Each structure stands twice: as C-alpha cells, then as structure tokens.
C-alpha cells in the first residue's frame, strides 16, 4: 500500500506505461489485417508517445508548460492523421469493397 | 501531490446530491412534459396517480422496471449493454462543476465549462454504439442521422459559448456568474449568441422539431428501437438529464445563474432551468419536424457563419475597448 502511494510521483511508472502502450500498439500494427484495426493500433502508439512527453516534461524539465504545449500539438496532429486515415479507408472500401490488407495487393510484385 | 486534502464526507455528499438532482429532475420533467403536452393539446394530461398526477412518473418507472429486457439474438451484447451507460455517465459527471448558488456547487473547477463541453461530446459515442449494437438497419440509420445532426450543431454551440467566455474571462462556471453580478446579464450583451445557443441545444438533445433520433413516425424508434424496459428508460434518463444540464449552462452563461432580487439563489437557478425546459417542451408540441437535409443545411450554411461572425465581432469590440 505504501508502494502504491509513491507511484504517482515516480517517473519510471509513466515511462513503463508509455512504452507498454507503444509496444502493444506496435504489435497491433504488425498483426492486424484491416485498415481500421491498424488505425486503432496507431492511435495507441500516439497515446504512448503523449504520456512519455508529458512525463518527461513534468519530471525532468524546469518549465512544465512547454510539455503541455507540446502534448497539445501532439493531440492535434493525432486527430488530423486519424481523419486522413479514415478518409483513405472509406475511399478504399468504396472502390475495392474490402479493407482487409490481405486482399488489397494491387501494388504487390 | 495534486490534492492535499479531500474531505470524504464532502465527496459522498456531492455524489448523493447529484444523484438526487438527476433522479428528482427526471421524475418532475416527465410529469411536466406530459402536462404541458396535454394542455397544449387541449386536454388534461395525467391526473390520477398522486396529487395532480405528480407520481405518474413513479408509476411509469415501476412499469418499465417490470418489463422484460429483450436481447436480440444477433446483437452485440457487450456493446448493447454499454451504450446506455456511455450515454448516461458523462452527463452525471458534467453536473459536478455546475453551481446552483454561491456555495452550492459539487466541486469548483477552473475549467468547469470545458469539462461540460468535453463530456457533452461523449453523447454521440453512446448513440453510435447504441445504433451499432442492435444489428438493425433502422437503428444504425437513426443513430447515424442523430450523430450527423449533433455534430453539425456542435460547432455553432461552441462558437456561441466562446463570446461569453471572452466577456467573463474565465472558464469557471462560478466566476462567469460572478462576472454577471457586476455587469448586466450576458443575454443582453450577446442576444444573437443566446438565440443561437437555444437552437443549438434543442438540436443537441434531439428534441423536436429536430428529433430525428426518435422520429416516431419515420424510423420506428431510431437508435433505441431494440431497447426495452429499464435500458430504454436509461436512454430517457440520459436525455432528460442532458436537457437539464444544457438548460443549467444556458442560465449560467446567459441569464446570470443564481442572481435575482428577492428569492434565494437556488430557487432562481431552478426557475431559470425549468423555464428553458418548458421552452424546449413548448417547441416540441408546437413545431412540426424539420427535414434532415434542411436542418443540416441550416446548421452548416447559416448558423455556423453567423456564430463565427458574432464571435469575431465580440473579439473585435472587446479588443477595441
């Protein structure tokens, strides 16, 4: 219980969680076979990066406001990228009737 | 540490208070709706159960609880069960920063208004999941229409709130009312924003003349077609609580919250909130339903430019002064 009390002030916890999210997102990106599945894993990657940036800025930097600004920009960029990805996925589905990347092999070979 | 001391008793009281507010509001508003509907249609409405029919909602609630909850066999059960919960919980939490008088507030937040806006956005997620989980074309269609409608009016809603934030200089709901104590109520400074805010919240809460989500004569029952019994009532609880929240924000932002001459603060606040609720019910039983594309065109082509212009004008005037 005492150990749990020290957790929110411990940088290592945030770093480990961020890397865990990054690893799980990476696993998802490698092994999911639909475009939307890949998008979901990509968003997980970005969440991990956000936690990392915020944690470093809070613990290691004298000016924590800069970390908040950077994380806000990260949020905005993640949203823009998700919107573009979805536009592409919808267009691909409309033209090929599938979003499974096993079947979208027009550029292969 | 972020917090140095939490008063456990205060937190418990806060949870109890919000639950009571939501529950009593639901009971009262359902009765009020049926009475208003009745009198506008030149009939009486509920009169049997309790004095003047006040306990009608309790009777309805008991009836709904005793109904069997039917799960469609091809429905996605986790999503089916989660959707009403996702519709309901954010509205509960959004009632936390709302002040009912100078001291009657669950918890003071510097970014109270921002939290209310953020949690209001989660309503769309609940509706989409509800439409998806039913495995029913009508439900999905109703849900997509409802979400398109809500998203189309979200931006004018935010652009109507922004001039008030400029005038008050803060996101904290309590400070906004305090700012109106010195100067006049913001409705007099921002009549256009007030009017557009009323239109936007009628849209946001899926009320007539914009109730495409329910659309009783068009889509069976929209996104809650397959829900029966208590889960159906959860959606309605969420909707009425969201109406209460939107009216509370309207009275705080534009009509000065708990400010008023003779009566105590909370009484004024409740009067203003129920004035807005009565207004929404008045709209429902007076106007026919608008067509979907007309409504979307109105939102994107008329409401959005006007609210943007209003915001720019306010910012310009405030910078000049």
């Amino acid at each position, binding site marked *: 219980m005492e150990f749990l009390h020290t957790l929110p002030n411990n940088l290592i916890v945030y770093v480990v*969680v961020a890397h865990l999210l*990054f690893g799980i997102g990476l696993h998802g990106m490698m092994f999911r076979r639909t475009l939307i599945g890949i998008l979901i894993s990509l968003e997980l990657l970005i969440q991990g990066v956000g936690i990392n940036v915020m944690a470093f800025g809070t613990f290691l930097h004298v000016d924590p406001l800069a970390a*908040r600004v950077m994380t806000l920009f990260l949020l905005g960029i993640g949203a823009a990228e998700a919107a573009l990805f979805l536009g592409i996925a919808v267009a691909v589905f409309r033209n090929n009737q599938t979003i499974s990347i096993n079947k979208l092999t027009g550029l292969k070979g | 540490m972020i917090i140095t001391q939490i008063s456990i008793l205060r937190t418990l009281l806060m949870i109890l208070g919000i639950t009571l507010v939501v529950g009593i509001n639901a009971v009262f508003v359902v009765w009020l709706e049926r009475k208003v509907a009745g009198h506008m249609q030149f009939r009486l409405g509920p009169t049997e159960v309790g004095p003047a029919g006040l306990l009608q909602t309790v009777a309805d609630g008991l009836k709904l609880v005793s109904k069997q909850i039917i799960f469609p066999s091809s429905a996605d059960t986790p999503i089916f069960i989660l959707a009403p919960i996702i519709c309901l919980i954010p509205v509960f939490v959004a009632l936390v920063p709302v002040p009912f008088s100078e001291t009657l507030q669950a918890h003071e937040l510097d970014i109270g208004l921002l939290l209310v806006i953020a949690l209001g956005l989660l309503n769309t997620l609940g509706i989409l999941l509800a439409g998806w989980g039913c495995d029913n074309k009508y439900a999905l269609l109703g849900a997509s229409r409802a979400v398109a409608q809500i998203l189309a009016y979200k931006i004018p809603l935010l652009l109507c709130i922004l001039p008030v934030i400029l005038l008050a200089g803060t996101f904290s709901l309590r400070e906004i009312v305090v700012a109106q104590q010195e100067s006049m109520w913001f409705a007099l400074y921002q009549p256009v924003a007030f009017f557009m805010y009323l239109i936007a919240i009628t849209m946001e809460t899926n009320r007539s003349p914009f109730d495409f989500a329910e659309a009783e004569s068009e889509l069976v029952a929209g996104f809650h077609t397959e829900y029966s019994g208590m889960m159906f009532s959860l959606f309605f609880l969420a909707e009425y609580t969201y109406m209460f929240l939107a009216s509370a924000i309207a009275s705080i932002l534009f009509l000065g919250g708990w400010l008023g001459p003779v009566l105590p603060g909370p009484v004024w606040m409740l009067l203003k909130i129920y004035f807005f609720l009565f207004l929404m019910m008045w709209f429902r039983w007076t106007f026919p339903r608008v067509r979907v594309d007309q409504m979307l065109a109105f939102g994107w082509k008329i409401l959005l430019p006007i609210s943007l212009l209003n915001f720019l004008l306010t910012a310009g005037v405030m910078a000049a002064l």
Partner: protein
Amino acid sequence: MSFERFALDIYALTFASLLVQIVVGAVMAVMLKKLVHCFLGLVITMVGVAGLYYFLGSPLLAVMQIMIYVGAVCVAIAFGLSLTHKAGEEGLQAPGPRGIVPPFITLAMLGSVLLGLSRREWVGYPQKIDESPIGMMLLGEYLLPFEVISILLTVAVIGAISVALIKRRR
C-alpha cells in the same frame, strides 16, 4: 484510520486502477477479433490516459484529451467502422515467429531510456500549476507551430474529404 490516510489510499488506488485500465484497454484493442470490441478498448485506454494526464498535474490536458480524442477522433473512427463494415472479415493474424519483434523493440527502447534516465536528476514532480500562460505561449513563443498546425488541420480535413470522394476511374 484517519480521514486523510483513507483519502491517500483512495488516491493511490485510483491511480493504480487507471494503470490497469490503460493496459486492459490496450490489450483489448489489439487482441480481440471483432473490430467494435477493439474500438471499445481504444476508448477505455484513451479515458485512462486522460486520467493519467490529470495525475501528471494537468487537468487542462485531461479535458482536452477527452474532448479531442474520445469526443472527436473516436466518434470518427466509429463512423469509419460503420461505413467500412464487411461481415466475416478476419481481422487478426496469428503472430508466428515474427511476434518476437515488438517486445524486443519495446524492451530495447525501455532499456535505453531507463539507462539514460538513471544519470539525470528528477527536477520536478507532478503539481497543479496555473495553466493560463499556455494561451499566451501559443500566441507568442509557439506562434509558428500554432499556425503550422492550423494549416495542417485544414489541409488534413480538405484532403480527407477529397480522398473520400475519389471514384474508380472506369
């Protein structure tokens, strides 16, 4: 047991449950078969990350995370899901021998980061600071990134709309 002690316990337990929520949501998001369940896992993770931002001393970022990610990006993904839904498409591939790559990369990154961190002192700790200078910073010191991201968002929205309107050339 005093009230303050109980409050600290609740605080610590909330933090621990947030960590559990994040990990459970992430595992749901990559391991489940049906895409809607993965989407739910993503929502759970994002709400957990919002809580983590609150514990790092930034209620503003927590609310922004809920507003931008859960309120907008997740709704957009849900719309995309319903528009590209095809019954019976297998969404998951068994990892196989290549499954060792993500844990390996993650552990390598984590090891190097922890090694680098062991040489630095922790200057600060999570505390709630006044975040109103962020607005002035966005329009003063960070004006260029601010304008660039607004252009980026405009281009992304216009690009998404124009891409979604592409029809197959016959």
